[in-house]
């Protein structure tokens, strides 16, 4: 039992070959995630100051005062003012300290304006991306460039990324482990998020909040490109044959499962798509999921049974 209290974090690397590579969240790649990881360590360290002695004390007491050992037995002792003051006092001090740290860290990673990132540098303005979730795809609109993608999020290394998010259908949760904190994506509401990666890399992103039958396939790739590569990609996408007006968008927003998250690219994307999707949701536009749901995919053909039971 003691193992779980003490080493729940430490034991798994041992089991999986003494490497923490699998533990992605231990290796943050964005300043925001680095703050999150730093405060995780501060919190666990502070808490272990109390959890560790209490665990040890419990083990010692269970061992030492078991009946067969005939240790000192004092059935009348059940009150001590000093101890009781201490056992209220220590948790209060710890919670006060962690409460202060919590407030400090919350400002640093505030999704609307994370002070861990420099969002207001005129020499390096943030890359703006509007994120719209449908059932069950991610649509990324780059209003600064008039382009859009499905399930692919290329960004620039060393440049902060500012996201605005809304949904056409149900609530999702935007998440890129190691990079971007989770933020809810809700219909008829707008949220924001921000991140920055300094070196070219690629990450998987996905929805973290259950959104229906296609939820498990709701992935997107996050490609961090060097500035010249990103410029090349933007130029190429700006001449993509498919275009994304609001009318075209309403067809994409119908329930679709994109198995394997195959990306699509659009030129001439409506820069106000997010606002239009948001306004439409508030005006009552709903992309209903049919009861006899048939999810067509390229690799598998799901036929949902009657009433979705099978």
């Amino acid at each position: 039992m003691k193992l779980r209290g003490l080493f729940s974090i430490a034991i798994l690397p041992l089991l999986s070959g003494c490497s923490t590579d699998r533990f992605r969240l231990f290796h943050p790649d964005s300043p925001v995630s680095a703050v999150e990881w730093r405060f995780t360590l501060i919190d666990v360290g502070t808490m272990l100051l109390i959890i560790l002695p209490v665990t040890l004390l419990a083990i010692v007491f269970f061992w030492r005062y078991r009946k067969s050992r005939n240790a000192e037995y004092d059935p009348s002792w059940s009150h001590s003012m000093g101890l009781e003051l201490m056992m209220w006092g220590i948790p209060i001090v710890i919670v006060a300290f962690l409460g202060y740290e919590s407030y400090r860290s919350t400002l640093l990673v505030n999704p609307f304006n994370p002070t861990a990132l420099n969002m207001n540098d005129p020499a390096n303005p943030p890359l703006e991306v509007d994120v719209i979730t449908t059932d069950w795809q991610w649509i990324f609109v780059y209003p600064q460039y008039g382009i859009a993608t499905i399930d692919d999020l290329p960004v620039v290394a060393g440049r902060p990324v500012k996201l605005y998010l809304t949904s056409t259908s149900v609530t999702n949760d935007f998440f890129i482990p190691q990079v971007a904190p989770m933020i809810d994506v809700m219909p008829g509401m707008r949220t924001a998020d921000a991140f920055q990666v300094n070196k070219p890399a690629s990450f998987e992103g996905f929805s973290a909040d259950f959104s229906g039958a296609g939820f498990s396939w709701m992935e997107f790739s996050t490609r961090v490109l060097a500035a010249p590569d990103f410029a090349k990609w933007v130029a190429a996408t700006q001449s993509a044959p498919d275009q994304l007006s609001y009318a075209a968008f309403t067809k994409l927003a119908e329930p679709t499962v994109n198995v394997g998250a195959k990306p699509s690219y659009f030129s001439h994307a409506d820069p106000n798509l997010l606002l239009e999707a948001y306004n439409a949701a508030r005006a009552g536009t709903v992309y209903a999921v049919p009861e006899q749901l048939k999810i067509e995919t390229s690799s598998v053909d799901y036929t949902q049974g009657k009433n979705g039971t099978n």
Partner: protein
Amino acid sequence: MFVHLQGPYSFLFGRLTLAAIPYNNAIIQFAFVFAAIAALLVVAPVLYYRKIPYLFREWLTTVDHKKIGVMYIIVGLVMMFRGFFDGLMIRTQQVMADGPHSAGHLEAAHGYLPPSHFDQIYSSHGTIMIIFAATPILTGLGNIIVPLQIGARDMAFPTMNAISLWLTTVGAALIMASLFIGDFSTAGWVGLIPLTELDFSPSAGVDYWMWAIQISSVGTTLNAINVIATIITMRAPGMRWDRLPIFTWTTLSTSIIGLTSFPILGVALALLGADRYLGTHFYTAGLGGNLMLYTNLFWIWGHPEVYFLVLPAFGILSEVVPVFAEKPLFGYITMVAATFAIAGVSWLVWLHHFFTMGAGPKVNSFFSVATMAVGIPTGVKVFNWLFTLYRGRITFDTPMLWAAGALFLLLAGGLTGMMLAIPAINYMVHNSVFVVAHFHCMVLVIVYAIFAAVIFWFPKVFGFKLDERSGKWFFWCFTLGTLLVFTAMFGLGFMGETRRLDYLYDTDWFPALEIEEIGIGFYSLSCLLFGWMLFVSIRDRAKLKPVNDPWGKARTLEWLTRSPVPFYNFAVTPHVNTRDELTFRYLNHLSTEPDHFEAIHMPRNTPIPIIIGALAFGFGFGITWRIWWMTGLSLLGIIAVVIYRSFARDTGYHLSAEVMSQLEHEPPLGVIAESQFLSKRPLGGAGAH
């Protein structure tokens, strides 16, 4: 009709058609065969030994708080097994459906469950474990123990107590019905909004979920009223507030939470019902609705509900630890203060369930600090148990093992809970399985306490102890399962696995998923061991012969009366001198036997509660399938039965002093046999006022 429904509709059967019965699904077929065999095993002996009249007379119509408690616990354990089976299926699906090359079986592309079936299973797992397993078992324990601990003869409202039981049972029955008729919600036990709206969940699944919870929560609210009234008004002479056993204190605090929070859930679900049935827009994204309204309302109930469950668990630990350390509880007043501090702060923390909704840093910080503040009184409780052990004389009987396990789990759950309370950390793991592992740690504190309590108080009710040897095997097997499943799950959270995935795309997770599967194997084994423990104990019950205090060192008032406890609890209401009354009487060589007998008044059994329960099932089933004639008639029936009952005057009977003397000198027969004995004998005065 107010809303547009997909699919056929008829007056007689509502939305229900033959197509709603998934007879062609292999998994459902298996479940049906399993359930049929289990039902046969229960029903066949009852028929063979012609026990139906006995069952009806002594159990189904009873108003005895102990029998009601036992039935609560049976319902809870059956549902816990169902919930465990759901958990087993979830784990097996995830280990089978990892990576794009994982094989698909039955109708699934990966694993053996297609998404909509998997989604129903995890939704029913959560709903069942919280609302239909933990809640009824703890309610049942409170029902049995609280009146005994305060020296009362029954609950304040015995008939309402039975109604509470049957309403909870109806909720559980609706969930079981959804397995074979129609489907269940896919939107999680929390009812993710707006996924539960008709546009996104058009089938009857969400309606099953909604009405099952709604009906059972009426039962829970009524029970909370009952417990509060009982504790305030029915304490034995001398049972002052500062002498109340801790379990009674925690049950009181929990009932106050229940009474104040369950109506919020009722409103939250009623508004959802209005959206789904009447076409209103309380929670829709558009047309003036606000989906976060639901999320707030749900968690304003949901977080206090967590403490509704965990406080009695803390109470159980506070009863078990002193008994097996043979010392009074350290810091009684501090313990009571900590209990009510937790109950109070539990109202101020609900927003931490959706830190990621995009609230500003100041809102999130407030709820962060409030959440951490819960850690203060909880820490105090841990210290209290710790110093109770200090200079004790500890024996590791099975209840103590479970209590020790709960203590260590609480430390693990507390450590991870303090992590999740910080928004900056929460943003990283909010919807990950790290959260799932954390709250399972906390829920397992409750489960461990439940097993401690069931084993500890079993002889009080049935007159013989459960077998210690198989009980210890059960404990270690269960604990090994807990360690494997949830250590791996904490790790998976940091590997980036999120919740509720029916297909997992990352093969890095596979080793940890395998560890979880091995762990769930140990859990399965422990289910069998639990059954084995019951079997061995019942087989050898003569050896584990009844004595009033089977543990030899019990402390509180409930052990003062005989074990198995007679239907009237105490022949003579005891006079309470101190906190640990039984220990006090032992030490001062006071008598634990009554010195005289007097006439008592007992409530009479009535079929009204089970009739109300049957009508409530008709209401729930009818409204789920929109069979309006059934819904309307059931509702009218309930109202008529309640009015009819309100005219009943003959609701109790007297037992004379001679009969009491006679009963007390009979050999104890056990709670099951005892009142059967009563009903067989013509008792002077029984039946008259």
